[in-house]
């Protein structure tokens, strides 16, 4: 059988009614657990994996794929509606998505997230099937210096994309970078800034910080406004569905997000959140509605959500071709495969084609089920916002706390949740953007580790950072991203930039 026949065979198995039912159950369970803030796809899958053990391999893989995609999408739903990102890769979604929900456009935000996830998942899964062996070769070329250059690029693009004031954005970013140095230094095993508190040894959990800054900070801010705050949010303004204009503004970000997310997910040290950051920065730069960014631009939801899902499929590239689990979720998947005596690795496509193609077919089906389950529910989800404000925010606090406890049952973690919630509140009052703090916490350790690894391998020779062609190209793009806007600004910013925007398509 060739590639196509394997895929068709896999699809025909996955389309059997019982298997479709398993997919539906998986997606439903995954979404239900995934909506809890602080519980990301990894924990969702770990909790629900035993459920799949009772089924035959095909049914189990399909339910598993459903749980995985469901868990990912559940995180986006709470990000958009409640501003409580369930995992680091849906933080960016909360930025624009929640603003849209607050403006009565929660329906289109959820829909563009669901359809974008579907489109990205579809393209990325097909890419996984056909070009995985080539992508993985490219990904392995990335060593510490190339990753460091990629992080530099991410820093430059991201810090210019959040908020209007560069100074405030950078201040927030550096708060995040400072928090990132807490904990055991991975390269030497020595504790830094932990002040003898064992709970700090492992550093600050990204989801705890994100849930605290977004959900707790927001709740405090609203509560402090008392009756002076804006009245109940208008749940639905205009159509609950995407309008023609929404479609027109969404499809290009979906495709761009996929193109950014898939290769980054395939890199062993890429990480889904970096794809979402780069996608957000790209959309903000290319949009024809720059004034809407920060106030609920649909591109800012469509792009990162697509990037997020594409990178999840990208994660499977090193997993299936090399047996490399590069994320916690992938590691759990590996454990799931082993139940069937399946050892992912370079020979997997040759020795177990049925199961591999069965998995890829399952992912396609699960992706479709996700759309089937969630699109009709958009109207229902949106009505969450009509809950009176005191109840709504009490509920958000409850779920934020439950999620944090569920992920890490310790009183200290709850204390951190509260402390960072207060920090988020103070930063809101003084007009500092929240997202760069979380971005700093995620990117800081990655950049530091890769830089030190590169220098350790070269025994301290700094020139290695520039002598690799890939690193050189990435650093040049980063430098251009930093310098070009300055030049444009100096030469009469408005005209040139708007011309650039106008000639974009």
């Amino acid at each position, binding site marked *: 059988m060739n590639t196509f026949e394997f895929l068709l065979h896999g699809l025909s198995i996955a389309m059997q009614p019982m298997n479709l039912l398993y997919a539906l159950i998986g997606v439903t369970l995954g979404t239900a657990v995934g909506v809890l803030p602080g519980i990301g796809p990894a924990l969702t899958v*770990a909790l629900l994996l*035993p459920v799949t053990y009772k089924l035959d391999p095909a049914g189990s893989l399909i339910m598993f794929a459903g749980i995985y995609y469901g868990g990912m999408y559940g995180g986006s739903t709470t990000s958009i509606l409640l501003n409580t990102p369930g995992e680091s890769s849906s933080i960016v979604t909360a930025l624009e998505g929640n603003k849209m929900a607050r403006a009565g456009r929660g329906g289109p935000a959820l829909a563009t997230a669901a359809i974008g996830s579907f489109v990205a998942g579809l393209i990325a899964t097909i890419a996984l099937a056909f070009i995985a062996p080539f992508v993985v070769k490219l990904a392995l070329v990335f*060593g510490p210096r190339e990753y460091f250059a990629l992080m530099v690029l991410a820093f430059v693009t991201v810090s210019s994309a959040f908020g209007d004031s560069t100074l405030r954005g950078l201040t927030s970013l550096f708060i995040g970078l400072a928090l990132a140095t807490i904990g055991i230094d991975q390269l030497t095993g020595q504790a830094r800034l932990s002040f003898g508190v064992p709970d700090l040894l492992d550093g600050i959990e990204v989801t705890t910080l994100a849930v605290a800054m977004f959900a707790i900070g927001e709740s405090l801010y609203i509560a402090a406004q008392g009756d002076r705050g804006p009245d109940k949010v208008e749940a639905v303004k205009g159509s609950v569905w995407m309008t023609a204009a929404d479609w027109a503004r969404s499809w290009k970000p979906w495709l761009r997000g996929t193109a950014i997310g898939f290769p980054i997910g395939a890199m*062993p040290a890429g990480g889904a959140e970096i794809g979402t950051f780069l996608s957000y920065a790209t959309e903000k730069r290319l949009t024809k509605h720059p004034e809407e960014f920060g106030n609920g631009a649909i591109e800012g939801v469509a792009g990162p959500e697509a990037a997020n899902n594409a990178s999840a499929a990208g994660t499977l590239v090193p997993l299936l071709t090399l047996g490399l689990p590069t994320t916690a*979720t992938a590691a759990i998947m590996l454990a799931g495969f082993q139940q069937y005596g399946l050892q992912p690795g370079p020979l*997997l496509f040759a020795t177990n084609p049925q199961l591999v193609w069965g998995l890829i077919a399952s992912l396609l089906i699960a992706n479709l089920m996700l759309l089937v389950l969630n699109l009709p529910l958009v109207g229902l989800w949106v009505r969450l916002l009509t809950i009176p404000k005191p109840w709504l925010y009490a509920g958000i606090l409850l779920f934020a706390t439950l999620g944090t406890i569920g992920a890490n049952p*310790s009183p200290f973690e709850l204390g951190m949740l509260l402390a960072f919630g207060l920090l988020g509140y103070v930063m809101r009052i003084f007009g500092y953007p929240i997202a760069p703090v979380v971005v700093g916490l995620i990117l800081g350790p990655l950049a530091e580790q890769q830089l030190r690894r590169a220098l*350790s391998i070269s025994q301290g020779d700094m020139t290695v950072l520039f002598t690799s062609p890939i690193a050189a190209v990435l650093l040049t793009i980063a430098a251009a991203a930093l310098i070009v806007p300055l030049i444009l600004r100096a030469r009469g910013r408005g005209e040139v930039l708007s011309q650039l925007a106008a000639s974009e398509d």
Partner: protein
Amino acid sequence: MKQFLIASILAGAVAFSASAADYTIIAPANPGGGWDQTARSMQTSLQQEGISGNVQVQNVPGAGGTIGLAQFASQSNGNPNALIVGGYVMVGAILTNKSPVSLKDVTPIARLTGEYEAIVVPAESPLKTFGDLVEALKKDPGAVSWAGGSAGGTDHIAVGLIAKAAGVDPTKINYIAYSGGGEALAAILGNQVTAGISGYGEFESQVKSGTLRLLAVSSDARIDGIDAPTIKESGLDVVVQNWRMVAAAPGLSDEQKAAVTADIEKLAKSASWQETLKTKGWQDTYLAGPAFEEQLAKDISATETILKEIGLVQ
């Protein structure tokens, strides 16, 4: 709203699972890692074999397991239903993190599984044998970069022991720590480092497909089915095993300890556990009672010595 209800029920199950369980096993690591897999495999076998009706696994990740260990020691005192999974990495982490809680503060029950270290180089590497690698290390320790797991963990300790046995200053080794075997594997495959060291299972499929060359394994004698010499054969007296164990809560009576030990022995001898060992590729290293306690004490003092020599512990 229905989904929210389901979600909150599930969350409740997560948060309050401890009260309903016959055994609660703490996996002091993130989902997906070795300790998590050990705990979840124990859960499956304990339930399947009818040793325990209801087993819950709880992840308390961080700092080489010392965060989970500290929480376990303080919260489970005298609770005969609480278990924690741990291993050799924890022994090192307790020392490097200056953890206030050590394995003395819990009740070690038994060693369950183990895995030997494998030393590999990329297929295109000029180093053909373990002897070549040792020669390169003797010539310029800094020029030989080793990719492996977390700093102070089994992989790092093994490299330190190899250097010491070869007469090279262990503080001079150029060890590049990665968060897990997977990320390290990518660096080795991408030819970013000189050599790689990790559990054999991490490298198995790559070695079989010929993309990595297996130079040596850290066992006492050659392992069936693995075509590689031991480190010992090359004249360096280094044997390292990354073992995993299970411990019970502190403050148990002798009867309670005996009951837990009996349950674990039943588990280790059960058909489903033996099956799990086979599918996961884990060695059965079951050892309990005084023999285990003696071995544990020996491992702890040997680890402390080498970590001091590498310079990770003062």
